[in-house]
């Protein structure tokens, strides 16, 4: 009776676990995640993720897609995606992977090869990582975007109207609140542009000043408008 339970239970766990008292020596291959809490020696090839837990010891040449090392690895890791050494991870060997993460506290001795480290690639890859993160942070602003474009054109006419329609602050805040997130994307570009230029002016105050007023002026006008609306 206990056995069928265990068998069915182990079916639910759809990945491979090497328990703390287990020693596997030889060649291990597979197409699923592998969690090592015991020892694996020899050669380890997976098309998925290797997880070496704190009690795990791997003395092997490892070829996997992802490796997360919280235990001990002695040998080379060749990963098609990433290798991560966690706080408790200890490793001696070479790492070959496009993404290598070594956390504070991890100990590592060996070489790291991330492949072709071209100046163009890393920046292009990082935005890819940032893109999914950006929509997550801006979901509340996203609905504001479609409403924002109409708000921008309406905003310029509002400038001349502001003195006339100063009593309008009540409707204005409702417009301004969506406009704030919408206007935020606009101001950020100017500040970075403006920041380096103010830095530059001290070098050549006379020649650099004329351009800065234009850049600052464009950004400043918008900022001023926003401030007026907010107030």
């Amino acid at each position, binding site marked *: 009776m206990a*056995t069928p339970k265990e*068998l069915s239970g*182990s079916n639910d766990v759809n990945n491979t*676990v090497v328990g703390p008292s*287990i020693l*596997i020596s*030889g060649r291990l291959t597979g197409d699923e995640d592998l969690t090592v809490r015991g020892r694996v020696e020899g050669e380890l090839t997976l098309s998925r993720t290797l997880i070496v837990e704190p009690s795990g010891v791997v003395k092997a040449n490892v070829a996997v897609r992802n490796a997360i090392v919280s235990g001990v690895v002695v040998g080379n890791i060749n990963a098609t995606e990433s290798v991560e050494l966690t706080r408790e991870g200890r490793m001696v060997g070479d790492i070959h992977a496009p993404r290598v993460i070594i956390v504070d506290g991890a100990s590592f001795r060996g070489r790291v090869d991330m492949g072709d480290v071209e100046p163009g690639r890393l920046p292009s890859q990082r935005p890819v990582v940032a893109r999914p993160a950006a929509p997550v942070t801006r979901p509340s602003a996203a609905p504001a975007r479609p409403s924002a474009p109409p708000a921008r054109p309406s905003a310029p006419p509002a400038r001349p109207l502001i003195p006339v329609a100063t009593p309008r602050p009540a409707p204005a805040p409702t417009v301004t609140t969506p406009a704030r997130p919408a206007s935020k994307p606009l101001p950020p570009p100017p500040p970075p542009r403006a920041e380096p230029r103010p830095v530059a002016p001290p070098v050549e105050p006379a020649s650099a000043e004329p351009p800065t007023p234009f850049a600052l002026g464009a950004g400043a006008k918008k900022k001023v408008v926003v401030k007026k609306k907010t107030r």
Partner: protein
Amino acid sequence: MANTVIGSSIVIDGEISGDEDLVIQGTVKGKISLKESLYVEGSGVVEADIETQNVEIAGRVTGNIVASDKVELKTDCRVVGDIKAPRILIADGASFKGNVDMDMKER
């Protein structure tokens, strides 16, 4: 109990030893020596000599089995090899080819 599971897509060519239960859903070639129980599930394929306390086989095993307690061949298992254990159970529907030895001189 910490439980070791060899998943269905895993192939191990070598030696497995340990002091805990082992569940095999994948393929193991070489040698298995445990001090606890070995479960070879329906999808499991073992081409190895086995030395454990208990063995329950629902999959395929090719190799000699020595158990200090019990060997159980379940329905639909296919076993080729010699079995040596004080208790050996062969269920209806199991297919088995080899010698059976229940006389444990070591005891």
